[in-house]
């Protein structure tokens, strides 16, 4: 865990969407570029690359974070979830939130969508039913297409689906 001597390349072990990966990466490599270019998971999108837009939001050790403001080496030993992990594995169906985004026209170009989905995924689904909390949660993600109304509508519907579906987030 400790790296005593300054080095410019670091061995990292990161569990991404349940699969543990090992790479030697430059210290300067951003987590966002690691996910996209080294690991090849391109569902995480890079908008501004300075922490403003939220498009690159992923979940690291349970917390939603901007992957462009974190170094890959900082995720060493940690667990990362990306948008590819949301839909149930081995099926064509979507997660309830993804389905609700689809049904409510909560995306147009879709560039920001992965970030919204990961922010919402990071909190207790009970918070999806508190409109003020939802607006506050989504304030860290920019969308230039929808005007947000349909996104808020989708979150409300996903909450209903979540509750109607017996409480399983994957159901």
């Amino acid at each position: 865990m400790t790296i005593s001597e300054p080095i410019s390349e670091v061995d990292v072990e990161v569990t991404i969407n349940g699969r543990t990966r090992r790479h030697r990466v430059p210290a300067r490599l951003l987590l966002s570029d690691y996910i996209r270019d080294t690991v090849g998971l391109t569902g995480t999108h890079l908008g501004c690359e300075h922490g403003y837009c939220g498009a690159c939001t992923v979940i690291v050790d349970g917390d939603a974070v901007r992957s462009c403001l974190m170094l890959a080496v900082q995720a060493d030993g940690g667990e990362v979830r990306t948008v590819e992990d949301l839909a149930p594995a081995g099926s064509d169906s979507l997660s309830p939130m993804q389905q609700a985004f689809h049904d409510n026209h909560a995306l147009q170009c879709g560039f920001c969508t992965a970030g919204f989905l990961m922010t919402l995924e990071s909190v207790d689904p009970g918070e999806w039913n508190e409109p003020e909390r939802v607006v506050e949660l989504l304030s860290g993600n920019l969308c230039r297409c929808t005007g947000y109304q349909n996104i808020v509508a989708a979150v409300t519907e996903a909450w209903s689906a979540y509750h109607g579906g017996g409480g399983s987030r994957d159901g």
Partner: protein
Amino acid sequence: MKPAPFDYCRPSTVTEALEALSSAESSRVLAGGQSLVPAMNFRLTDVSLLVDINRIEGLASVDCDPGGVTVGAAATQTRVLEHEGAAGVVGGLRAALRHVGHLQIRNRGTVCGSLAHADPAAELPALAVASGAMLAVSGPDGERRVDAADFFIGPFWTALEDGELITEVRFPAPPPGSVTIVDEISRRAGDFAVAGMVAIVEADGGAVRSASLVGFGLGGVPTRLATAEAAIRGWAADHPADTIAEAVMADTADAFDDIHATSWYRREAVAALTVRAARRALVAEEAA
């Protein structure tokens, strides 16, 4: 939008971190990285060695006792915000942190990092000054304690010397029965404030007994509103607010202009926020 190459190390003790910081010309501490990494992405900051303090044992602690809250250098803003005891002892922490960035930023960003970064429009430096916070700083020559009032020197400029590291900050509990209000004008939720203020107000019998008032987004460092602190003593809700507003205008004569707002706008905004804070404090006192 990628950082230039640098060396990296991840020490396990403060001593090792200090040795590393002293070993390179342009070494920087990496805590939450929510201001440093964008600056590196933009190549505004030249870093030859990044010293990651996040795996140092005990540095992410938040300790609470009736006298105050002590926040370690690697403790995230979310950790402080969600800490059960901290908000009860120092209500200003929750009041300020609600305005800091967004969930994703607070999940990584640290309280001490915000103080070290010293953005003139940030809430936490103003809270530190208003509440009389004390920073513990370690460096090659040992440890020292720095009063928040002496810590901020200019925009993005603090009393930290090369090779020094903030290890923790202590926010003392405000006077019993006081109310801490952090209020600001910003374009969007989570953005840096155009201007704002922290007010720690003691009220008694429907009048303000005393207040600690510090503005932010006005100049290079948190601005103590000393004239307003004098003018607000004894103020009650049925008194005219002009005296407070005029005092704030006197305290903020050096406020700066930029693309977001004129100096005059910033001063008027903080004057209005100060009157609003006094009213809110009196309502809270009546309700208590």
